[in-house]
């Protein structure tokens, strides 16, 4: 760091140039270009109504992508988030169901499903830390396990007809903005501050860069890992709560494929899949970009199958451009 600072003092232009070439800035430029192109594609795209509505649709991916950033920064991965979301959704409905076996108050059912979600995440963490199974294998196994539980508990029954007040979270607005977007905003702020401004957050980078070194530096690696996997489970529970409120029913296949969308957003956001680098801002730009592409291309008349092809291409190009520039930067310093 000292050398870079010295360089900056000698040449103020270099500081600005490095700022400009930061991953987030490059991504932001890509996002801006995409928005301009999509606006040219359809006059319905850049309207407040449409953008707010898109906020509603990206919530579940956003909520899961935030803790996923933590996990990928440590060099881990969590494939079970979609299944945890399915399990939480099913439990929420199952516990509340007025004609079911438990008939709990809705608030209690929500809290219970969040607790179970967190527990599912903690179990992931325990298996990874205590037994030493790699995260990819662990969460691939629990992906199947939690989905199986969801299907077993639901017994093919969906639970419907929630009270009107329950739909506020998923379908209502607060100060003109979809309710769930506020939730996303709050969690974005919290996770951004935690990752970049706290000892805990910085330790995650240390773990991702050199786990053994982090351990020898006195960082409680195991505990931190369990915390982030638990947090991931909790956020999957939040996503389930909001999703059930939005679509007004519970199904055991809810959230299938969610893990891939979340990981795509995180990686597009410049977080290295090998751990050690990444940021919440990058992830935010990542999920916003993917959602706007889906929406904007559809509005421009591109069919759904065409849209996923474009998104895949954009993903590869964004990562290529980013890698190219980062390599130029590190070579040129």
């Amino acid at each position, binding site marked *: 760091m000292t050398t870079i600072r010295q360089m900056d003092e000698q040449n103020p232009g270099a500081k600005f140039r490095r700022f400009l070439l930061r991953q987030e800035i490059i991504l932001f430029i890509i996002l801006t270009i995409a928005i301009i192109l999509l606006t040219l594609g359809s006059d319905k795209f850049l309207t407040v*109504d449409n953008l707010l509505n898109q906020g509603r*649709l990206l919530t579940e991916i956003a909520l899961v992508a935030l803790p996923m950033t933590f996990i990928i920064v440590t060099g881990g991965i969590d494939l079970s988030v979609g299944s945890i979301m399915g399990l939480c959704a099913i439990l929420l409905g199952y516990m509340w169901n007025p004609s079911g076996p438990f008939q709990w108050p809705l608030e209690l059912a929500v809290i219970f499903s969040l607790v179970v979600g967190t527990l599912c995440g903690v179990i992931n963490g325990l298996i990874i830390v205590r037994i*030493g199974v790699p995260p990819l294998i662990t969460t691939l196994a629990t992906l199947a*396990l939690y989905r199986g539980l969801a299907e077993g508990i639901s*017994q*093919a029954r*969906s639970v419907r007809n929630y009270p009107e007040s329950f739909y506020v979270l998923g379908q209502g607005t607060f100060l003109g903005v979809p309710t769930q977007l506020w939730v996303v905003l709050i969690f974005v702020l919290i996770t951004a501050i935690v990752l970049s401004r706290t000892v805990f957050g910085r330790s995650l980078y240390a773990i991702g860069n050199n786990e053994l070194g982090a351990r020898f530096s006195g960082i409680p690696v195991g505990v931190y890992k369990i915390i982030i996997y638990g947090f991931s489970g909790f956020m999957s529970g939040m996503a389930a709560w909001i999703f059930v409120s939005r679509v*007004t029913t519970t199904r055991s296949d809810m959230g299938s494929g969610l893990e891939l969308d979340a990981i795509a957003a995180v990686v597009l956001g410049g977080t290295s899949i090998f751990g050690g680098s990444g940021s919440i801002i990058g992830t935010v730009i990542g999920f916003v970009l993917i959602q706007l592409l889906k929406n904007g291309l559809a509005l421009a008349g591109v069919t*759904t199958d065409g849209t996923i092809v474009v998104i895949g291409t954009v993903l590869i190009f964004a990562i290529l451009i980013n890698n190219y520039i980062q390599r130029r930067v590190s070579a040129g310093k």
Partner: protein
Amino acid sequence: MNRKLLVGLLLGVVLVLGFALVMPTAAQDRWDGADDLPVNPLECPAAEGAGEASPAEMSMPEYDGGQPTDAPDLAGQPIVLVDVPKLVGIGYFAATTLGQQQAAEELGNVTVTTDAPTEANIDDQIAVIDNYITQGVNGILFAANDPVAIAPVLTRALESGIHVVGYDANSEPAAREWFVNQAEFNGIAKAMIDSMVAEIGADGSFAIVTSTFTTPNQARWIAEMQAYQGKCYPELTWLETVEAQEDNVLSFNQATTLINKYGPDLDGIFGMTSVATPAAADAVAQAGLCAVDAVAGAAGSAEDAVAVVGLATPNAMKPYVTGDFAGCVKSVVLWNPIDLGYAAVYVLRAVVDGEFAPGDTSVMAGRLGELQVVNGSEVLLGPPFIYTAENIDGFDF
């Protein structure tokens, strides 16, 4: 470390085994159609002809559909429709799309575009419809992946003045104006069970491969099949029902698993989707368990044979009905999906033109003639159709 690993693994195995053992037993006896509606089995074959009530003669419930808010009056004018089936890329919905295009061509003042997710996913389907509401179309045709989950977005369409007509898979009635019902559930259930009994006898055992337990049509059919079987063929044994999404490979694997699991106890497999039925037939053919094995001339003793009856499109089933594996499948139950898509467009056009309104008991649908209204806000396409070796080659979709 090693001991921990062992304990962990053991725990996992015990958990998984526990579920594997508990789930199938719990999975019986709960076929309620995932919608809590009462079942209504038709008369048994023996009792037929004793004055069966046709749909039109039954007491007609009140219209229970929704209505668009301030829809523009476009009677006789060109309209733009979007069709959002459960998914694209499968033969069945290609056929409904074909029917829609035929209707659009005949009418001359309708443009229909089909767009849907490539997987039958509720969230993706909602997003697609959402985008078309924003884009602004005159009407939406849909086949729901989930009747309840799709309701809020359809309601939003109605509130935006967009006409909404469903086909193939219904939503909650209030979220759309009309639903074109391809065949009544009890009619399909009866055709399926009767066809199966004709092959395996009234005391055989069968299993079912379906999409998911909560998919509206499939769940309802299974509920009706259970009711009809209980009423007319109590000696039939219902072994198991398995989920296979609408996935080729998974359906094949599930059918193969059933064959291996039950061995000679399994007499027949029902395929509940246009994907599951050919996959099940393929699994039976590859296991050499066709009732008539035209390929080798050997294999398939009648006792081990597994019959396949199911819902599927004719082209996918021709190899097993009249083609290389002729005789593997004797009856394919379905309606005509081309007519289904065709009727949906005609219904929406009639609604826009003001020729079809709540309270009407029938609607004119081009070459299909007059279609009856049933269940308040549903348009009935007609009785199910059974494709056999005699007639299947006359169809191409």
